[in-house]
């Protein structure tokens, strides 16, 4: 029989073998828990593309049921067809075998491939009837109106400027149109992709949701809301400049307005007034109000929306005064400025913005619908009413007269933000809504590197768009 030395060595050997096996099991578990997720996304893994090639991607429709994107062709040889390849280039984006996906094609990829909806019943039917193809994605209906979308896109491209336009329904948060300039042709993405990357002028960049702009005077809506909420004295004597900490904040064009109140200061966009009052309100209150307008907040949206920032931590009083007129460390997206406008149009409530109205199965059953939800109660209905009247004055007799349209009262605010580049080059803004009594459409327009003020270039564009949109919606 075995002696004890032999026995001991045998057990050492066995333990060695067991350690080897445990090593395998531990490494395999480690790999699956920590490494597998990143490894499956490696481009050399063809599983995803094989699966996708066999699925008929769902169609995308606008709010009137017009087809915006659809998949045609034979199984494993499908092609994606876009009805408005340029107008919707940033909203819908593209789904390419070689260049990947962007826009809603990327965010709603799983739904469009039908990966979210249960298919048990259909699988069962397909088992008995081979004509049934279970690999068909879900369809998606957007909130947009393609006539408005095309009009907005044409109008923006005609300015020959970089910029963005957002058109929304302020009472629901539905996006009616959204355009960014420059854009690209989603249909030809496979051919054009490399050239667009090489040109590097931001054609893939959706300025409406990704562009961070100094808001300039349009931010006075927020400042005015903060003034209304706090009990600071609303009267002021304007001398053309307001000196804070030794540095002066001046009015545009060197104007002097004398004795004014909030309404006049807002109507004529008097910088000195707002700088003075912001200092009186104080940083904390101003920040609190700005955050109720969703500054510094991540907003859940169908596309990747950049967070608009109001970084007030390190501000001294001069920076606070600059912030009151939309300079300093404030960066907003055009969509964010539309949301701020919507708060005024919608009795103080900001509705969550959305682009996808509903998702339906190929058979027509509804899988998911969007219910309008309140994102933030920014201000009281009374203050919203007062601000709406002030914004109406802006368009009737103030800096936003260019935004007037026939037979309908428009409320709005102009902005002209200095950019860091050269003097005489501005970001021209206009935000507004109409009709004032029963708002149906709100709009934000921004044109980059403009030689003219917001009231001169952005307001007339906004007027055209609101007039067209109201006509479309009636």
């Amino acid at each position, binding site marked *: *029989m*075995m*002696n004890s030395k*032999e*026995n001991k*060595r*045998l057990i*050492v*050997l*066995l333990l060695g*073998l*067991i350690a*080897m*096996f445990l*090593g*395998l*099991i531990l*490494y*395999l*578990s480690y*790999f*699956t828990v920590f*490494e*597998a*997720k990143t*490894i*499956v996304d*490696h481009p*050399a*893994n*063809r*599983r995803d593309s*094989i*699966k996708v090639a066999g699925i008929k991607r769902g169609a995308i429709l606008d709010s009137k049921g017009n087809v915006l994107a659809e998949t045609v062709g034979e199984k494993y040889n499908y092609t994606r067809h876009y009805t408005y390849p340029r107008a919707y280039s940033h909203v819908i984006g593209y789904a390419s075998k070689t260049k990947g996906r962007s826009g809603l094609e990327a965010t709603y990829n799983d739904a469009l491939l039908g990966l979210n909806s249960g298919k048990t019943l259909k699988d069962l039917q397909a088992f008995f009837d*081979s004509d049934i193809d279970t690999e068909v994605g879900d369809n998606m209906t957007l909130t947009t109106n393609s006539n408005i979308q095309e009009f907005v896109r044409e109008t923006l491209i005609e300015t020959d400027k970089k910029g963005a336009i957002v058109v929304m329904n302020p009472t629901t948060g539905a996006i009616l149109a959204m355009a960014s300039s420059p854009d690209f042709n989603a249909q030809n993405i496979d051919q054009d992709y490399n050239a667009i990357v090489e040109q590097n002028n931001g054609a893939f960049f959706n300025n409406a949701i990704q562009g961070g702009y100094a808001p300039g005077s349009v931010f006075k809506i927020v400042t005015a809301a903060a003034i209304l909420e706090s009990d600071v004295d609303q009267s002021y004597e304007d001398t053309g400049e307001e000196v804070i900490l030794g540095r002066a904040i001046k009015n545009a064009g060197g104007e002097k307005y004398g004795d004014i109140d909030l309404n006049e200061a807002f109507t004529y966009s008097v910088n000195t007034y707002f700088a003075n009052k912001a200092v009186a309100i104080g940083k904390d209150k101003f920040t609190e109000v700005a955050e109720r307008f969703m500054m510094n907040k991540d907003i859940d949206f169908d596309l990747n929306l950049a967070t608009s920032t109001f970084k007030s931590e390190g501000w001294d009083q001069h920076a606070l005064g600059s912030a009151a007129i939309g300079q300093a460390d404030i960066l907003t997206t055009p969509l964010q400025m539309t949301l701020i406008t919507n708060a005024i149009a919608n009795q103080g409530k900001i509705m969550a913005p959305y682009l996808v109205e509903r998702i339906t199965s190929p058979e027509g059953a509804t899988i998911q619908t969007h219910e309008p939800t309140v994102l933030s109660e920014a201000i009281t209905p009374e203050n919203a009413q007062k601000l709406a009247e002030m914004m109406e004055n802006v368009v009737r007799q103030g800096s936003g007269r260019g935004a007037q349209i026939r037979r309908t009262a428009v409320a709005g605010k102009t902005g002209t933000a200095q950019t860091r580049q050269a003097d005489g080059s501005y970001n021209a803004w206009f935000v507004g809504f109409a009709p004032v009594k029963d708002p149906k459409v709100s709009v934000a327009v921004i044109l980059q590197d403009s030689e003219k003020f917001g009231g001169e270039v952005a307001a007339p564009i906004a007027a055209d768009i609101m007039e067209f949109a109201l006509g479309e919606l009636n």
Partner: protein
Amino acid sequence: MLTRVFKSRKPRNLLLLFEILALFLLFLLNNQHIDRYIVILFFGLISVIYISNFILGKISSGDNYIFLIVSMLLTIGIVTIYRLNPDTGLRQLVWALVGILVFYITYFAMRGIRKIENWAPFYFVVALLLCLVTLLFGVERGGARNWIQITNDILFQPTEFTKLAVVFLMASYYAKYQYMISRPIAYKALLPLGAAYLLIGFLFIQKDLGTAAIFFCIFSGIQFIYEEDRKIILLNIGLMLLGALAGYFLFNHIRVRLDIWLNPWDPDKIYNSSAQIVQSLFAIAEGGFFGTGIGLGNPKLVPVGISDFIFPVICEEMGIFAGIGIIMLYLLLAYRAMKIAMAQPVLFYRILAIGMAILFAVQCFLNIGGVIKLIPMTGLTLPFVSYGGSSMLSSFIALGVLQVTSEDLSYKYEGYDEFKRK
């Protein structure tokens, strides 16, 4: 009925359940109607495995679990290969059948033939001849020159059997031969060392690193337990390090293997030299813990998925839980073999059992460790699971040997005491 199967104390009923479920999924995948193939597979697989487990329980007084463990491995292998390619799956079923036959032949032959522990020089000559034959007539397949082409279709891998010869050689040397050397040789402990390194050298030339590693492990493991001159063990380790270094600088294919292991994601290599390991990792990663389900993955993307890379294929569709299950089965097999060794009174058979334990365990470790990138790839099959006749036959011979060693063999030895060591 199902509860009866689950409650059954006989594990072979659970095995039957697994087979029925797996075959049902295969039926859904490949056939929308009942055809010849699936019927042959269904009845072939179930009867072969179920019946041989039953017969073995009747005839062998030894360990009845090792064959059951192998039955499970065999089932997983055949199901996976059939899923990849039904024709190959059926051929694997035939090989399994032949393997089981060889298992019984080995079993009865080992029981019948006496004094096989005296044949150390014979085992050495067999091992050497198999190596020489490969060296002279070998053709290269899959990066290693270790195949003999018999006809156009039939390839034969002699190294699969050399492994067994090495186990027998070491067992007979340490059990008997070292006491039979009449003339006193100064360093007789160098004899097995020299023999082992000669064979390993041949394998290096054939680029068959995996088998070389197995030889080394079998030799070192048995040496660790039975070599009385402990200095020789240190010499062995020293030689191994030296040999590994020399191999690294002498042979380009070793450097390539190492480089693939360290930088598989290099864009220059990802579609050629490291494609195997990268696709293997994708398959395992896609499967996750529970797998995609049989028929729902893309295991055909894994190169040589039926033989060397069958483990990632299994993991993709059955999950790493099945993968871990397979590792555990080999662990159990190695553990049973060691347990058999501890209970075996005859030294020669004891060493044989230890040798088979090391053989199965190391081969499993080198194969699975290679495909999950824990260690460099060595190009070995997974015993009983991978497709291949040579591998299947040699594995079943090893199992037959193990079955014999699990029994009381004292009837073979009238002068039994002379074989006891102290």
